[in-house]
């Protein structure tokens, strides 16, 4: 590149401070939070703190990965929390042989995982079917399972807590590989796959195209319905996995509570991560950072003894600030 062309490039795109803020806004927020904690929060700079935060953020990230894809198509999935509870209710019923007897515990656990995640995926597919086939608006279509899904899980278990001690299964939530919690590995794998799909595959591009202009996508030969079906199924799949992680850590499955409020946490993580709710864009890494930011905010408030009521207000302010800063960079 010659000096002259470089000069014109700079002339055309002057560096905008907000641009930087927007692109790295979430990272900057994260760094600021960490610095704050290093100064004010006792016992912060330890490996255990990292461990606590990573394991606590896992389920949100896993769900938010699916949510990011859904949102990229211009949709939304309110049912994720309920799907988590269904998956969480089903798995113990299988591996504790409540549904049918299974001799081998490894087989039982494998079946439990497959059935639980499979059902969640199918229910996600059902969401997609409502949306693609009947053109029901996503908020309403997924509101159906948001309401009914938890009810189904509660009916299945009669609302009772299922407790268990099955280390083979609980490895999902408590195990470690090379010192890294297994659930964190699951989370990272999902994040990497999803980021790769969005960036590098035809499917990813089609998701973004549908979110950007559904009619144009259809006329360009994209199987809009199929893509939507798959995307909602993936969201169900992620919720199914997240449900298993939650019950594995707690050695108990409570259909009433597993995944309660998860939809809002996941959506907030996606938004703070810089993905527009209107569709057409997706940043999986952003979602990861968004979730980490929200998690760290929570950690900070809890660790410093801020009462719940004040913490709610603080979280609200921080979500808005994060989203606003990103918006600034875009519109400038």
């Amino acid at each position, binding site marked *: 590149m010659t000096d002259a062309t470089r000069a014109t490039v700079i002339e055309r795109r002057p560096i905008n401070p907000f641009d930087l803020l927007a692109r790295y806004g979430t990272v900057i927020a994260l760094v600021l939070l960490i610095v704050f904690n290093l100064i004010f929060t006792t016992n912060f700079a330890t490996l255990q703190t990292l461990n606590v935060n990573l394991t606590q953020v896992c389920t949100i990230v896993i769900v938010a990965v699916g949510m990011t894809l859904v949102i990229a198509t211009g949709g939304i999935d309110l049912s994720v929390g309920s799907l988590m509870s269904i998956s969480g209710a089903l798995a113990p019923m299988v591996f504790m042989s409540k549904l049918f007897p299974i001799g081998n515990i490894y087989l039982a656990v494998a079946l439990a995982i497959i059935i639980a995640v499979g059902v969640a995926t199918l229910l996600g597919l059902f969401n997609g079917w409502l949306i693609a086939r009947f053109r029901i608006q996503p908020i309403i279509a997924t509101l159906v399972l948001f309401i009914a899904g938890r009810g189904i899980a509660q009916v299945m278990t009669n609302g009772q807590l299922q407790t268990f001690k099955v280390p083979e299964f609980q490895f999902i939530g408590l195990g470690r590989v090379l010192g890294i919690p297994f659930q964190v590995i699951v989370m990272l794998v999902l994040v990497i796959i999803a980021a790769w799909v969005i960036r590098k595959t035809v499917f990813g591009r089609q998701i973004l195209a549908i979110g950007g202009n559904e009619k144009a996508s259809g006329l360009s030969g994209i199987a809009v319905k199929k893509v939507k079906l798959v995307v909602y199924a993936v969201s169900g799949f992620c919720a199914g996995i997240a449900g298993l992680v*939650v019950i594995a850590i*707690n050695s108990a499955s*409570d259909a009433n509570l597993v995944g309660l409020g998860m939809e809002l946490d996941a959506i907030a993580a996606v938004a703070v991560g810089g993905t527009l709710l209107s569709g057409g864009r997706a940043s999986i890494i952003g979602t990861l950072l968004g979730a980490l930011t929200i998690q760290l905010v929570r950690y900070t408030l809890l660790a410093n*003894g801020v009462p719940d009521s004040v913490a709610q207000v603080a979280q609200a302010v921080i979500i808005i600030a994060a989203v606003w800063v990103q918006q600034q960079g875009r519109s400038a």
Partner: protein
Amino acid sequence: AVPPLAKKDTYKVGFAQTESNNPWRLAQTASMQDEAKKRGWQLVYTDAAGSAAKQVSDVNSMIAQGVDLIFLAPREEVPLIPAIMAAKGAGIPVILLDRNVDQSLAKAGEDYVCFIGSNFIEEGQRVGDWLVANANGKTNIIELEGTTGSSPANDRKKGFDDVIAANPDFKILASQTGDFNRDLGRQVAETLLQAHPEANVIYAHNDEMAIGAISAVEAAGKVPGTDVLILSIDGGKEAVGLVVEGKIAAVVECNPRFGPKAFDTAVAYANGETIAPMIINPDQFYDATNAKELLPTAY
């Protein structure tokens, strides 16, 4: 005065439950339903899903259906008053279960028959008293509160905190809500243990959060019962079992099996007996000294 209850062989009674999202409530509902079945009474059951407003509307629909008597487990002290008054106006006696209502607005023996239940403040006090007596130098407390704004959370906190305030050796390092929820209780305990490594007592407002706290303590590489004393309220079987194992140090019972007492009271009222305005359940206290022996009787 409270409307009378005619003497009959069987009754159609209402039970307005607050919510069904925790084991304690489920046990309470089951106890009521079993008792109704045993006596051959018809039970009209509603669930307010945690909303006081919906509970009032539930009571109203029971009134519309013409039940003979209403068992009400009020969500809150004040907002359920209109329901009690509506029932009274419709000539239907009401018996309150497990939570009372504001006595300045409605009175037992006048607006409703009576209150049967536990005293949440006292529960907190009993835990506090036990800790003061058995602390063995463990004085740095983390408190896991119930759902913010709910009356058991407020009262169990008040009872406990008052005892602690009177004993200057003890210190509450942090007090945060775990929403009566095992998963959240665990997460909050993890965070608070991390921020306050010197903590050696965890007081949880219910069993679920206490069990979550055990996981948190173990995840932090500490031994529950040895490094950290865990205290709880409710005293379900799982928790009492953990007392036997030594993971929970002590737990106050808050027995949800209301059925027999509630129905007996209704029959007594129909018979014209005088009913005490407050019937407090005798609740157990479990610790290492008695847990093993009492485990079979825990609910």
